[in-house]
């Protein structure tokens, strides 16, 4: 079997009082061995539930799934020996030191820090100076690295990371993704979830998730190339007014604020920047800065949500 993870038509719902809340519907995908696969979607899309099913912590109502060739229900013990899992919350013992946490998780998986030292060396070296410190006293970035070391200590074949970069500052976030790429070089399959669209481009392939469904699976490049409409970025002095104007007239199809610019799709696509400027000038400001731009993952995500 060549795929590290195979999910076939998984369905999961929860009872919340009297109503049934659908957490996952028609989830099917495959992750190849050694791939860095991203589940991209907002909170509540079903990412954590999917992770819990794959790590044998929950049972799906329908459908089947395999991790590293083992079936998640009947062969859960085999899977538990093989996967590494980092839950969304910081899930280490705050009152144990860095060192104690590591050796605890090592024995939990019948291994030792030395045995797989080559794998976690580059991560561990960064936290080693604080090995006598209690985990609760570490900063966010350091906690993240400790949690990753603990999840890697038994050299898992598949690593599940549930929103590892939530609540971490940009520098630590960048370092964390660099670490993931290093791990990939060791042959570990990594499945990572994140609500941050900009992280999608750091994955080999991503699944865009929204409201319990996967909307699209592709490489980041493939996804942005699938955005067929011509996209423009527009800027003027009064961005709020510009947005209201653009949305009210019937010149543009969609207009979304993207930080310093608005991303605009015209109903009738202009051929040049000048044409675009003129089209906007008929309904709004004249001091415009207009540019043709390629779509981002976020543009694609929003386009998919509209469907």
């Amino acid at each position, binding site marked *: 079997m060549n795929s590290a993870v195979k999910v076939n038509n998984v369905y999961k719902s929860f009872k919340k009082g009297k109503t049934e809340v659908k957490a996952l519907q028609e989830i099917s995908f495959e992750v190849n061995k050694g791939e860095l696969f991203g589940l991209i979607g*907002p909170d*509540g*899309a079903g990412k954590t539930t999917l992770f819990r099913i794959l790590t044998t912590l929950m049972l799906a109502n329908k459908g089947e799934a395999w991790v590293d060739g083992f079936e998640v229900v009947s062969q859960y013990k085999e899977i538990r020996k093989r996967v590494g899992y980092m839950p969304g919350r910081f899930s280490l013992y705050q009152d144990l030191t860095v060192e104690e946490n590591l050796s605890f998780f090592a024995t939990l998986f019948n291994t030792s820090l030395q045995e797989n030292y080559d794998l976690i060396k580059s991560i561990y070296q960064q936290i080693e100076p604080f090995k006598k410190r209690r985990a609760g006293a570490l900063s966010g970035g350091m906690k993240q690295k400790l949690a990753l070391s603990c999840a890697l200590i038994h050299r898992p074949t598949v690593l599940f990371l549930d929103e590892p970069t939530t609540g971490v500052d940009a520098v630590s976030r*960048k370092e964390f993704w660099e670490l993931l790429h290093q791990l990939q070089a060791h042959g570990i399959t990594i499945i990572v979830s994140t609500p*941050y669209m900009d992280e999608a481009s750091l994955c080999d392939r991503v699944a865009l998730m929204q409201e319990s469904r996967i909307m699209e699976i592709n490489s980041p490049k493939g996804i942005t190339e699938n955005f067929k409409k011509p996209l423009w970025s527009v800027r003027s002095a009064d*961005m709020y007014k510009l947005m209201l104007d653009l949305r009210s007239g019937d010149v543009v199809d969609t207009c*979304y604020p993207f*930080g*310093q610019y608005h991303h605009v799709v015209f109903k009738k696509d202009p051929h040049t920047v000048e044409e675009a400027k003129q089209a906007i000038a008929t309904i709004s400001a004249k001091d415009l800065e207009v540019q043709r731009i390629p779509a981002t993952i976020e543009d694609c*995500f929003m386009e998919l949500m509209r469907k």
Partner: protein
Amino acid sequence: MNDDHAISVSQLTKRFGSFTAVDAITFNVKRGEIFGFLGANGAGKTTAMRMLCGLSFPTSGQATIAGFDLYRDAEKIKKNIGYMSQKFSLYEDLTIRENIRFYGGIYGLTDKQIKSKTDFMVDHLHLENQVDNLVKSLPLGWKQKLSFSVAMLHHPKIVFLDEPTGGVDPVTRREFWTMIYEAAHEGTTVFVTTHYMDEAEYCDRVSIMVDGRVDALDTPLELKRKFNAPSMEEVFIQLARKAKRSDN
């Protein structure tokens, strides 16, 4: 004091023992501006914001918030600011109506005002069918929009937003920023702390704290130009990498 400044901070410093958490920061925030307040973990962001909200006293320096002096009028400041954090804003086990009532009561709104506010909000956020449901039953995006509206309940002069839009889908997120734009357009000053750089891009101006000091302050476009960086993320990383305090 300049009337155009909602927040005016000069040499503001906070020491804890020998540790200087906030080191003589000076900046102004214009009225109606959306001001991004960034910094790495441990850079002093939270400490600085607590001082601006009147929750902790500075060791030295001056600050005027919404026209009030930080030392003498901390209580008046609290009446004129709103606060929303992603971690906590609304009581999950109260209904939407009850939450609005509660916060309205805290800020001294009359029953009539509370009622009309509730109606307005329900209408504005399309919550007609949910108004008597518990807040915890709402999707995250709605919760965030609702908590922003609740923070704006008493028409504060300044609203402080602490990492407001983490984890929501891109469409809801834009709806949220549209609300922020709207508030700013009506003259409310918006002060956003976040460590998500794409949120920073929405701000009129952005300051970046490193080791307790404000190391950069400008519009996102200008900062990107100055640091020759394609994104705010890159700007931030260039600055934060110089930090000595780092996060240990």
